[in-house]
C-alpha cells in the first residue's frame, strides 16, 4: 500500500476505533452490571419529587423567551466576572472593550423591551 493511501487508512482506523470504543464500553457495562428492572427506576428524576404528568408535557412558549434572556445574561456574567478580578491587568483597553460588550447586550435587552417581549401577555 502506498503512503498516499496509508494516510487514508489512518483516518479509517481512527473512525473505527472511535466507534469500537463506544461499543466496547457500553457492551462491557451491560455485561458487568446487574440488571434488576423496577418501575420506579424508570421515573424521571425531578430532584427527588415524583413527577406530575409525562415528560413530554408542554410548557408555555412564553417561558422560552425568559430562558433566552436568562442565557444571555448568564453568558454576560461568565465574561464579566473573570474580567473584574483582573481589571488592572487589562487596563483601559479592557475597560472599553467590556463597555462595548455590555452596551451591545443592553441594546439587545432594550430591543426586547421595546418589542414588548418582557411583558407577560
Amino acid at each position, binding site marked *: 500500500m502506498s503512503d*498516499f493511501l496509508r*494516510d*487514508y*487508512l*489512518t*483516518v479509517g*482506523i*481512527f*473512525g473505527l476505533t472511535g466507534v469500537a470504543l463506544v461499543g466496547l464500553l457500553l457492551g462491557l457495562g451491560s455485561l458487568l452490571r446487574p440488571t434488576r428492572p423496577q418501575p420506579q427506576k424508570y421515573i424521571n428524576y425531578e430532584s427527588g419529587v415524583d413527577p406530575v404528568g409525562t415528560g413530554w408535557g408542554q410548557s408555555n412558549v412564553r417561558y422560552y423567551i425568559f430562558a433566552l434572556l436568562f442565557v444571555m445574561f448568564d453568558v454576560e456574567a461568565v465574561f464579566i466576572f473573570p474580567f473584574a478580578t483582573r*481589571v*488592572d*491587568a*487589562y*487596563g*483601559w*483597553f479592557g*475597560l472599553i472593550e467590556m463597555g462595548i460588550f455590555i452596551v*451591545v447586550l443592553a*441594546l439587545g435587552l*432594550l*430591543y426586547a*423591551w*421595546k*418589542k414588548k417581549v418582557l411583558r407577560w401577555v
Partner: protein
Amino acid sequence: MLASLWQQLSDSPVPIDSVDLAWAGLAPVMILIGGALLILAVDSLVPRRLRPGSYALATVLLAAGAMVAAVPLWQRVQDAERGPFATAAGAIMVDGFSVFATFVILSAVILAALSFDGWLRREEMDGAEPYVLMLLSASGGVMMASANDLIVMFLGLEILSIAVYVLAAMHLRKITSQEAGVKYFVLGAFSSAFFLYGIALIYGGTGSTNLVRIATYLSATVLGDSGLVLAGLALLLVGFGFKVAAAPFHFWAPDVYQGAPTPSVAWMASGVKVAGFAGLLRVFYLAFSTYRLDWQPVIFVLAVLTMLVGSVLAVVQTDVKRMLAYSSINHAGFILVAVQAATAAGVQAALFYLAAYTFMVAGSFGVIAVVSRKGDIGTSLDDYRGLSRDRPVVAFAFALLLLAQAGVPLTSGFFAKFYVITAAIEAGSSTLAIIAMITAVISSYVYLRIIVAMYGAGDDVPAPRTIPLPAAAGLALVISLTVTMSVGVFPGTLASLAERATPVLIPESDPGAVDPSGVPPGP
C-alpha cells in the same frame, strides 16, 4: 470607589500584550456591525414609526460607506511598497482577495436591501429587523473572507449563518418560511459542528489554527502520518460545502429557497455564497496548498455531483424559486470547477464568477419578489405566464438575467463560465470542463422554460393583472442589469480586478512569502 478604579487602571503594569489593531483594515466590518447596532437602537428608541424606506436607505448608505472604507484598503494592498497586511495578531488578513470579496458582499447587501424595501411594505412587515440581520450577516461574511485564522473563520461563519437562519424564518404568517428557517437552522448547526470538529483536528495535526502557520508547518514538515489533517480537511469541506450548497450537502437549498422570503433568498444566493467560497478558497489554497493532490480529486467529485444535481433536478421543477435554487447549485458546481483547478487562474475565475453571479442572482430574485403576490406566494411557473404583456420591462430584464445565468455571450455569465473553463483546461481538467459545459446546456433549458412562460402567447395566458414595481426594486434591477450587460461586453475591468485580487492567496514555494510581517513571532 471610582477614584480607586481610576488609580488602578492608570497604574496598570500592562502585563498582557496589547493587540495591535490596524483599525483601517477592520473598518468595513466595523461599519457594518456599528451600523446594525445603530439601526437597532434607533428602532427601539424612536417612539413613532420612521418614514417608510428609511431603514433600507440606511442599509444602502452603510454598505456604500463600508465600500468607501474599503477603497483605500484596495489601494493599499495593490501598492507595491505597502502591500497586503495581517492584523489582529495575524488573525485577519487584508489582501486583494479579501477586499474584492468585501466589495462583492457589500454589493449583494445593497441589492438585497433595495429588494427588501418594497417587499416588506407589501407584506406589511415594515421594520428594521431584516436590515439589521442582513448587515450583521454581511459582517460575518466579510470576516470569513478576510479570516487568517480558522477560529476567526468559524466566528464569521456563525455570525453569518445565525442571522440568515432568522432571515429565512422571518415571514411569520407563512408556514413554509418557518419550515425553511428550522430546516436551515438544524442542518446549518450540524455543518457548523462538522466545521468546528475539523478545526480541532487540524489544530491537533498542525499545532495551530493560524492559516499562515499551518501552511508554514505543512511545507516545512513532512508528516509521517497526515491522517488527522486529512480528516480535518474533509470536515471543513463539509462545513463549506453546506454553506455554498454543494452536492451532496445541498438538500436544504431547494426547500429553504422556496420557503424563505424572496429578498432573503436574494441575499442567501449571493452574499452567503460569496462568503462561503471566499472562506473555502482561503483555507484550501492558502493553508493547504501542499495537500493539493489530496483535495483536488475530492473537489472534482463534488463539482461533478453538484453540477449534475443542480442542472438535472432543476428540469423537473415547476416553481421558479425552486428552479433557481437548483440552478444556484449548478452555479456552485461551476465555481467548484474553478476551485479544483488550484491555480491562480482558478482563483481569478472563481472571483469573477462570484462577482458576476451575485448581480445576476440578486437581480433575478428581485424580479421574483416583485412578481409574487402578497403572502409571498405566486412563484410557480404559471404565475409568469403573460408577464411580458403585464410588465414588459420587468419580463425583458428577467429574461436577460436568466440568459446571463445560462451563459449567453455579451452577458457577464458568458465570461464567468469562460474563465472557469479556461482555468480548468489550463490545469489539465478537460473532462471537468466538458461535463461543466454539458450541465450548463441542461440548466439553460430551465431558464428557457421561464422565458417561454413569460413570452408565450396563446390560450393559457391568464387575465392581465397589475404588478406594482416599487422604485427601490426597480433600482436594484437596473443596477444588476447594467453590471451584467456591461461586464458582458467589456469584461476586462472586472477581470483585471479579479486578477489583482488573486495572487496573494497562493503561497510561492516559500510559504513565508505570503506575508511574513503579518505572522506574529512564535511563543
